């Protein structure tokens, strides 16, 4: 049972992280490889600020969320937007965006590694987690907050994308960008908004994970990108509900591997999952099959 709780906490972190990536990739078609660096650097900025002055829990979260949104918008403005403008076709653009994202991701990573000498960093905060027992399970306030935030964000974003007008516009871009633009959807503004929201989610996940673990290493972000990719592919690209399920399935599988004492194999779970899903059901659990000419 305790394992189940751990899996839920881990799953919510994966979910918060993967939601932003899934949102951007599923709608405006950008697989943002710098998402992990955004995640890490938001927490890192929180760390830098909290080194100067002690901050309350919410203070750190706000700083990280804002940093994430700013980094993500800047990435869009300085890297992805020019690439999209200069690319002839979708396929070439995809590849250049991935490469550009890898390049952008290297910058904050190198800066943080330089500053911390590659050692883990945490927050100095007035917040102290408390442990309480529910039904014989030990749960900290941090993991309770994480689980609730993850679920609220996951379900909220799913509903927003399904019900609201902006959600409809975003999904329309995902189906056919040009027709959507012809129907009066402001593509550029929505793309920036989506990237900012994704960055904010990454910042939120970064701050929460750092509170949960006490400290994170600068390299944490890159591993999470691959895991988030596994989550998105598992759930099905373009389906937010799929992403929610995928995050908890991956977390459950990893927790299972750890509880069986195969700890060193834990990273292989997500990589193996990517393989299995891509081979057996490339459209994912809840994804629609894409019709393509080849």
């Amino acid at each position, binding site marked *: 049972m305790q394992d189940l709780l751990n899996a839920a906490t881990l799953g919510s972190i994966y979910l918060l992280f993967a939601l932003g990536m899934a949102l951007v990739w599923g709608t405006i078609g950008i697989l943002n490889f710098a998402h992990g660096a955004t995640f890490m650097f938001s927490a890192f900025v929180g760390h830098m600020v909290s080194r100067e002055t002690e901050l309350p829990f919410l203070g750190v979260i706000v700083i990280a969320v804002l940093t994430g949104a700013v980094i993500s918008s800047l990435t869009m403005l300085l890297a992805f937007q*020019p690439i999209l403008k200069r690319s002839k076709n979708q396929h070439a653009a995809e590849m250049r965006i991935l490469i550009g994202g*890898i390049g952008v991701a*290297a910058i904050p990573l190198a800066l943080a590694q330089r500053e911390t000498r590659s050692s883990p960093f945490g927050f100095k905060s007035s917040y102290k987690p408390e442990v309480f027992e529910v039904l014989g399970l030990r749960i900290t306030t941090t993991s309770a907050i994480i689980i609730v935030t993850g679920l609220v964000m996951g379900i909220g974003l799913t509903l927003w994308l399904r019900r609201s007008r902006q959600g409809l516009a975003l999904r329309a871009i995902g189906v056919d960008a040009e027709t959507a633009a012809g129907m009066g959807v402001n593509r550029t503004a929505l793309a920036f908004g989506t990237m900012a929201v994704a960055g904010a989610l990454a910042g939120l996940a970064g701050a929460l994970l750092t509170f949960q673990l006490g400290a994170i290493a600068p390299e944490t972000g890159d591993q999470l990108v691959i895991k988030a990719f596994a989550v998105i592919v598992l759930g099905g690209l373009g389906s937010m509900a799929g992403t929610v399920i995928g995050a908890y399935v991956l977390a459950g599988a990893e927790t299972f591997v750890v509880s069986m004492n195969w700890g060193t194999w834990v990273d292989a779970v997500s990589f193996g999952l990517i393989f299995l899903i891509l081979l057996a059901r490339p459209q994912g659990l809840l994804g629609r099959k894409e019709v393509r000419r080849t």
Partner: protein
Amino acid sequence: MSDWYYMNVVLIQTTLTTLLLALSIQVPLRFGVFSFAGVGAFGIGGYGGAMAMVHLEWSTWPAVAVGALAAAVVVSLLGLVVQRLTGLYMGMATIAFTLIISVLAVNGGDATGGAGGLYGALGEINMQQIVLVVVAVVAVLVWTEARGLGRRIDTVREDPELANALGIDVNRYRLMSFALSGLIGGLAGAITTLLRSTITPAEVNFHLVIVALTAIVVGGARSWLGALIGAVIFVWLPTWLSFVQEWEKVAYGFIVAAAAIYLPNGVLGVAKDALHRYRTREERARVAVLQEKS
């Protein structure tokens, strides 16, 4: 000249092995396969060669051959498995493959030396031998770039449907790119490892993907010459500019991102464009002179 040579032997060796690594990723790109499996092949080749030397006490070149062949076989099998995937999915699946190699190496027990890596595999490799290997590899690649075969490969990359219609077996070409990439990556890994006498799982990581990708993106992705330009730039840049050394990784990130945005065909692409423009102008001038005479 010879003084300069003796002072820089290590750098020259690194340039050549980096060239091989870059080529292992460039070859599939030229076939339109977005595969990073070459870096995984680097790991297999390195471990294969080191294990043959340390455990089986083979001599240097049989060990290198075994490592390279093992890498070629494994990557070909991977190619069979993932050949249905395209674009980003292929990219991420092969990144996952590369990282699985590193997880396997951590869990290999005595055979791979676990997380600490494998030591004491010092091969006897001199410069002439490395140059010979590189020249052989480049000769094969020049053959694939020239004339009919080169044009068929370009068609497979730019327009697979057209290639199919022309009677080109696209799948066979793609599989061939996997085998070549595995072989070249394996050679790079085995030679690098036996030169340094050690290999650790941490070496087969994401940073290696970035190094290889940087060399290709900056140099030019369409020809082996581009990979050579990239390898030279990235191995020698830190020695030319001392401030780069300190900010090496930050500079890498900036350069990759900038190249992805502004130079999709790399330095080689720019040079070729300039040459083309120069020739066109010459030709026009010649024609104009002729017309005036008549």
